[in-house]
């Protein structure tokens, strides 16, 4: 076989030095879709192994947080939540917020956590953070179940009226925005953490602080009214719109801002695309620096 013939030959794969252009191989990711579901299954099945309460932990955490928030922010600090019981108001905020933070936290150390397996075998690395987001989606589903449990309870109790309507259809869109934003940010951070570990520290307390400017335990309008000077902090925070809108959809409480949502959507898509690019660049040689 002469060299000339080789040039016309079809090679199935080619391994080359890292290139800077956008090279996400979607076809390859699709081939590995079974792996994604097996990772999700593994995460769901193994996370509460050797615990006594098991999956009950999915409920305990948001319930207690919502209870604490209700006592501190509504009973002590006296934040008003309109016609909705404060507990339900907080629960809605926390569940949506939790989805974002767990997506972000768990994807942000993808490379570090999986260095052992990534160092031995190749599969599209992006499967890992994607599996995390899907796993958290299932957790979100479980947590929404208890939300609706309390919802029915408060309605039966006569504390509030049924307010579910066609707006509910937009809720999955909001969840997707939250997931994509967590994934995008997580991918960016995980890529940078492989070489410089500084960001790990930033993420752990940054996320906590971020909650206070994301309208989780108060309506957006309240901050604008009470702290007009700091209102911009909330207005520029895309997360605040998602939390606020989720509550508007679920509880008919708060405001909806189309401009804010468009801004959020664009930010999310940009973050996600940037995350994908940087993640793809890192995956090729992170094992040398991690």
């Amino acid at each position, binding site marked *: 076989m002469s060299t000339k013939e080789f040039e016309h030959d079809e090679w*199935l*794969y080619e391994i080359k030095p890292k290139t800077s252009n956008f090279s996400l191989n979607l076809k390859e990711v699709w081939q590995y879709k*079974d792996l994604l579901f097996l990772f999700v299954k593994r995460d769901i099945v*193994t996370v509460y192994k050797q615990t006594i309460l098991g999956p009950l932990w999915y409920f305990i955490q948001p319930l207690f947080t919502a209870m604490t928030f209700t006592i501190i922010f509504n009973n002590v600090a006296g934040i008003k939540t309109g016609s909705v019981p404060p507990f339900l108001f907080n629960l809605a905020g926390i569940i949506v917020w939790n989805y974002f933070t767990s997506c972000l936290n768990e994807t942000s150390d993808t490379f570090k956590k999986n260095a052992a397996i990534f160092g031995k075998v190749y*599969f599209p690395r992006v499967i890992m953070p994607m599996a995390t987001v899907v796993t958290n989606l299932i957790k979100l589903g479980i947590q929404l179940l208890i939300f609706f449990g309390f919802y029915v309870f408060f309605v039966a109790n006569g504390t509030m009226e049924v307010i579910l309507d066609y707006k509910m259809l937009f809720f999955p869109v909001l969840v997707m925005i939250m997931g994509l934003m967590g994934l995008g940010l997580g991918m960016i951070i995980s890529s940078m953490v492989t070489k410089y570990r500084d960001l790990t520290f930033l993420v752990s307390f940054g996320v906590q602080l971020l909650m206070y400017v994301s309208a989780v335990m108060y309506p957006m309008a309240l901050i604008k009214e009470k702290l007009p000077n700091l209102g911009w902090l909330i207005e520029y925070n895309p997360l605040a719109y998602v939390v606020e809108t989720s509550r508007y959809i679920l509880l008919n409480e708060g405001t909806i801002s189309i401009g804010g949502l468009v801004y959020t959507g664009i930010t999310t898509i940009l973050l996600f695309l940037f995350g994908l690019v940087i993640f793809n660049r890192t995956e090729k040689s992170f094992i*040398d620096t991690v």
Partner: protein
Amino acid sequence: MKSKNIILKVENISKQYRLGTVGTGTISHDLNRWWHKIRGKEDPYLKVGESNDRSTKGESEYVWALQGISFEVGAGEVLGIIGKNGAGKSTLLKILSKVTAPTTGSIKLRGRMASLLEVGTGFNPELTGRENIYLNGAILGMTKNEITSKLEEIIEFSGCERYIDTPTKRYSSGMTVRLAFAVAAFLEPEILVVDEVLAVGDAEFQKKAIGKMQDISREGGRTVLFVSHNMAAVKSLCTSGIVLENGKVVHVSNAEEAVNFYLENQNKRSEELKDRSDREGNQYLKFNSIEIENSKGNNVNQVFVGEKINIKLRFERNVDFDLSKLILSVIIYDLHENIMCSFPSDEMNCKFENITNNEIILKIPFLGLRANNYSISLYSYFETTKKENAIDIINNAYSFEILTEDFYNSGKLLRNYNCAFLEASFE
């Protein structure tokens, strides 16, 4: 030039690593690299880099773990990759299995590649054997249906039927390897990469695994890349071989010749002992030559089992110190770098006070090692065997072969093993 069907083509692969730790110093290099890149210039650190000789002190922070590697593998070929520790074998496999990208060059493949680099890659200890077969198979690139169709065969081949619904954390390490190998073997990739994994399993499983690899290549027409220090396995399993040394390909041929080249090359190094620079220690004294004298008084590098030999060392002194404080340890290794025996002068209560002609002779009245290839390393120290007191340390200073013989006059030659040989008899 070759009529065979090339399935894997490696062209001019190089890989550069930066030594030392990642810290604030790294960021300035990264920024500099980025600055060159946005101006469309070449990476300034690609030009530096030195060849990767672990024992010598280098000038540059950058080393080439691999440099200009090119080779081709045809379908159905079993390629053995041999070389010393640090020759670049694992780096090459990592690049081949896409774990890390090469710095330059390209690799072209005409088929799916699966690697079996280490035991139980991707096994989750909490999951059962069956669940792990699915998980591991998917990690290696199989779809769920493919795995289901082969599940029975995989379980049977692994021989872990009884444990298949038990979490793998309860498995012995041997069982984990069996299961892992079984999954990879039934993956039916066009190219299978196997790196020293078989060392963990027992003899029966090793035989089974090697047989399976032969089946894969002969009957399945698939290609196997096999990395091993076990020369016997390379000889029996591989059809062709390449030898790596300090990140470069130094020999390509059939397996038999490659193994011989590798062993000879190790021998050759001994002749240039005085030119060797990969030494450690303060060099108060430097060993210049090493020879083995057999029972007939000839200098040889082949001796017989149980023979009486003298190992003669000559040295030169750079610093005048009290030779009675010299501690010398001569250590014999097998090819897998296992210590076979050692002769430390301090334990043997030997003082080198009366040495005048710069020559030390180690007398071994009965060389109790079976027939195989061995190497000698020299360790010398001042007063104590602490690392900071090292005078001259040379690994693999000399290689020699022990030949088999009819030791017991039974009409049978002793079998070849790398193990000790003791004088004994049955009553």
